[in-house]
């Protein structure tokens, strides 16, 4: 959408690089991005190469796949073993480890697991397989949750009776609050998720300034968006004037998408939720409302789930809170690698550890 030549992009980037270096000076600054897509965009653009060493970019709990607890995966895996069940999922979930297996392995062993781009594809699958129970693995933050809600409403409208959702949606603002309330958190500014904000607007983040005086900027995903976001945060930090700014005005309106929020609110209500590696955060998740429970997998389809086991030595929680870099975890690169991940941070492409491993610790030592 931004029609610029490669040369123009490069020169604009040079402006930001210079300004960022001058604003940061020798002060050590830690900025956190809270969106897995930002984690990957930062690595793919090679942004760290352009930042002074004093500006540290850490990844927070922004990868919805990574924060999904073992128990959810174990439940999905248990369902996949039931012959009358078809599991429908985003590709992201396929390699996430449960206590003793993952959906990819189950699929290879013959389970009916289908990968979709849109949850809407579940409805066609349900209609074509009336004797099966189609369970959609509904994960994601506020960008995706309204879509799951919309698909449930579509199923209701079409009278589809064999479609269910196994929901584990999470909300970003409560996670940010929990993060800032934890004693050992030290973050100087947030790069806020542009597409979550496209749905929820700006208002849900105001508490970051009002209660915690922490600079925050809603940021897009192009390399220049991210550079501008970092630049704006550093300006705030230098002037000691924490503000909530919107760098992504071309997509994010002040009020977000009210139709999407209303759709979400019709089907889901807030509930306490468990975040892998962090624990329970009050009202940070979504549960299907009582009048839509006919679409809830766990309410309608009995399943026996194995006892959940967490992996010893895994420091995903600290990584997710931005307190340690992946390299501080002894499992990183050894027993925990993308092809055999131990913790959730290594599984999703967007997980901090996976991104770190795949894209390198950020700097080309050429």
């Amino acid at each position, binding site marked *: *959408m*931004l*029609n*610029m030549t490669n040369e*123009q*992009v490069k*020169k*604009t980037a*040079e*402006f*930001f690089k*210079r300004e960022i270096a001058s604003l940061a000076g020798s002060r050590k600054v830690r900025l956190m991005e809270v*969106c*897995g*897509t*930002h984690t990957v965009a930062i690595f793919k653009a090679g942004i760290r190469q352009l930042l002074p060493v004093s500006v540290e970019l850490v990844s927070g709990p*922004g*990868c*919805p796949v990574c924060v999904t607890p073992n128990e959810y995966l174990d439940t999905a895996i248990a369902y996949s073993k039931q012959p009358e069940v078809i599991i429908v999922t*985003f590709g992201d979930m396929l390699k996430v480890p449960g206590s003793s297996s993952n959906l990819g392995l189950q699929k290879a062993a013959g389970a009916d697991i289908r990968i979709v*781009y*849109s*949850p*809407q*594809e579940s409805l066609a699958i349900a209609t074509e397989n009336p004797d099966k129970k189609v369970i959609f693995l509904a994960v*994601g*933050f506020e*960008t*995706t949750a*309204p*879509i799951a809600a*919309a698909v449930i*409403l*579509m199923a209701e409208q079409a009278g589809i009776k064999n479609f269910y959702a196994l929901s584990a949606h999470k909300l970003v603002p409560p996670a940010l609050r929990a993060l800032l309330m934890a004693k050992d958190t030290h973050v100087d500014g947030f790069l806020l*998720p*542009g*597409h*979550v904000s*496209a*749905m929820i607007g700006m208002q849900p983040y105001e508490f970051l300034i009002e209660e915690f005086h922490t600079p925050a900027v809603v940021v897009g*995903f192009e390399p*220049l968006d991210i550079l501008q976001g970092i630049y704006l945060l550093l300006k705030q930090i230098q002037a000691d004037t924490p503000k909530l700014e919107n760098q992504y*005005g*071309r*997509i*994010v*309106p002040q009020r977000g*998408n009210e*139709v*999407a929020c209303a*759709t979400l609110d019709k089907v889901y209500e807030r509930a306490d939720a468990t975040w892998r590696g962090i624990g329970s955060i009050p009202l940070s998740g979504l549960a299907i409302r009582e009048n839509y429970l006919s679409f809830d997998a766990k309410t309608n389809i009995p399943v026996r789930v194995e006892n959940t086991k967490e992996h010893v030595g895994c420091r995903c929680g600290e990584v997710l809170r931005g307190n340690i870099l992946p390299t501080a975890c002894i499992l990183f690169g050894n027993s925990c690698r993308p092809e055999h991940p131990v913790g959730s941070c290594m599984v999703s492409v967007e997980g901090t550890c996976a991104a770190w491993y795949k894209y390198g610790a950020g700097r080309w030592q050429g």
Partner: protein
Amino acid sequence: MCLAVPGKIVEVQDLLATVDVSGVTRKISLMLLPEAKVGQFVLIHAGFAIQEIDEEEVRKTLELFKELEEYAEHDQ
């Protein structure tokens, strides 16, 4: 959770739009963006249009970036 792409609506039938992304097309639901019209640019995620793209803001962003590019040039 944020993989979303801008595309242009080339056709609308009730709440179903055909969206064109650099020549690649797909049917996208407008259930979450019911006011969207043919010719508009929208952001699509998981088969749904989730937000309008504000062309005025695009222009402003572009203008700003190009201005900054010139600062970089001049100070060389």
